[in-house]
């Protein structure tokens, strides 16, 4: 029952994942390609204000910008397939490697944020659900609602001012040491922890309202057993589904927070590249982010299937 169909199931899930990856990445990059081409003359931008018309014409020919749009699009897709997004207009290094070099810094912050969200958010959410009608439970819920309302750039400036500029406990700008990632992580974590608290609480209350909880009580199960052993696993799949969707939001927030702390992840790189019109970098960043998003949702699917035998069977077909 458990093992006999694992092979085909994994293959099928893998195939679905690949299709989704292809559709997402292709869709986003296509959109971006046409936006970039419609926005003006990249050759003129590359040559800069000092260049002559001949310079521009030469660059245009070199980059194939004189060809019809569809031909360019075809060539672009070919480049994407080879992960070739061109070279950075400023540093001259391949765009994809420029982005991948910065990726670990971003992943470090995002990973630490998610870890905090689980370590702090889940227990607090359980407490809020267990004491839903009592003052302590209400206080946690209200605190989470308040934390969700503070924009990350506002909280970020506050933390920066207090802990870096006034108290001097932590470094302010940059990303030279692991300590530099503390404030960006805390800034991102405030919202994410609050979100997890509310999700876990809502999921648990929903689970606790189901009939089988009464069965556990009828068996003599304690409150703790009811909450931890029965309600929590049942609350997990919906909470997970929300978190997967939220991860897109988290990546968006990373862009702002990295910019605020001058933290050299791919978010700051993207904003810098936009202002410098360094389009290869922009495209490579969007590509990497699209892959990340699909990867997160694939991991979410796997975890969701592991957690719920009903989904497991559906996935087996």
């Amino acid at each position, binding site marked *: 029952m458990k093992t006999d169909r694992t092979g085909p199931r994994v293959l099928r899930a893998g195939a679905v994942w690949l299709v*989704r990856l292809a*559709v*997402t990445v292709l*869709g*986003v990059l296509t*959109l*971006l390609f046409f*936006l*970039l081409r*419609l*926005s*003006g003359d990249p050759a003129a931008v590359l040559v800069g204000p000092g260049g002559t018309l001949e310079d521009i014409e030469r660059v245009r020919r070199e980059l194939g910008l004189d060809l019809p749009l569809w031909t360019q699009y075809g060539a672009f897709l070919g480049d994407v397939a080879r992960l070739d997004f061109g070279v950075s207009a400023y540093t001259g290094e391949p765009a994809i490697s420029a982005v991948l070099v910065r990726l670990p810094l971003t992943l470090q912050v995002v990973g630490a944020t998610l870890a905090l969200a689980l370590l702090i958010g889940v227990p607090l959410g359980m407490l809020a659900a267990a004491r839903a009608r009592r003052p302590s439970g209400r206080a946690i819920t209200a605190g989470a*609602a*308040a934390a*969700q*309302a*503070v*924009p*990350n*750039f*506002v909280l970020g*400036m*506050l933390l*920066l*001012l207090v802990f870096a*500029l006034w108290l001097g406990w932590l470094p302010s700008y940059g990303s030279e040491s692991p300590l530099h990632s503390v404030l960006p992580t805390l800034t991102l974590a405030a919202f994410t922890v609050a979100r997890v608290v*509310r*999700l876990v609480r*809502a*999921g648990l209350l929903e689970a606790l309202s189901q009939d089988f909880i009464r069965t556990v009580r009828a068996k003599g199960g304690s409150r703790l057993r009811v909450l931890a052993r029965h309600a929590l696993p049942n609350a997990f799949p*919906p909470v997970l589904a*929300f978190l*997967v*969707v939220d991860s*897109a*939001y988290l*990546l*968006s*927030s990373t*862009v*702002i927070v990295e*910019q*605020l702390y001058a933290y050299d992840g791919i978010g700051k790189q*993207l*904003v810098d*590249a*936009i*202002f410098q*019109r360094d389009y290869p970098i*922009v495209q490579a*960043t*969007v590509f990497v*982010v*699209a892959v990340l*998003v*699909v990867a997160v*949702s694939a991991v979410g699917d796997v975890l969701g299937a592991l957690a719920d035998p009903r989904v497991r069977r559906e996935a087996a077909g």
Partner: protein
Amino acid sequence: MRPSVRIALAGLVLIALAVAVGPLLLGVDALEQDLPAKLAPPFWMEGALAGHPLGTDQLGRDLLARVLVGGRTSLLVGFAASTLACAVGIVVGLLSGYLGGWIDRLIMGLGDLWIAFPFLVLAIATIGVVGSSTPILVTLLTLAGWVTSARVTRTIVKQVRGEDYVAASVGAGAGHLSVLTRHLLPAVASANLVMWTFVVGTMVLVEGGLSFLGLGVRPPAPSWGTILSDGRELLETAWWIPLWPGLALTLTVLLVNLLGDGLRDALDVRMDDHA
């Protein structure tokens, strides 16, 4: 009405009134520079200037006037974008749920992809390319926001379609348009009201974020996000510049969320996208 809903409504009305008529009553130009008066601290601090209760920025502009005027932009963009997003979402959701079949699957599949992509990254890329203006901002925010409303609408339409009174009216020969507007639209109204409330908060936040990055509203016209962005450079010397727009943003979003939560409970709307 629950007390929380009343407090939230009253607070939001006050904020809206303040930004709408406040600048007129105040009579101070939010764009007027006064370099000798630059970086004046707020009223309780030493060196505060009369006539600038919340202080001034690096160009000597009055912060109270700027926060009030900036609120107009922030709230206007937020309201316009969330209204448009919900309108688009309702239409798409109605069609998707009503027509069903492959159109439904296509639209919802698209929505899944759409919602999973970090919108800000796309918005930044787009604005970087086509430049920024209020219409572009509203358009982008609308594009970002339609999915949640469409999903909620579609779910409800699917439920209501199966119910007897709708089936009866189809059986009685009612046209598609009449079924859509007379039966389905009212059924999705309350859920979308709640949705809209939450989306206003999100939109105000996103506008703030984009403006903070320098990709939102163009200076010198202030919005809460641009004032925050101005303050970023001078955080250590003039922390009060970002303080006021930061407070205004936080308070607005808090009240909007409170209102949304209250409405959701009062109207008994199940909102799977906002736990």
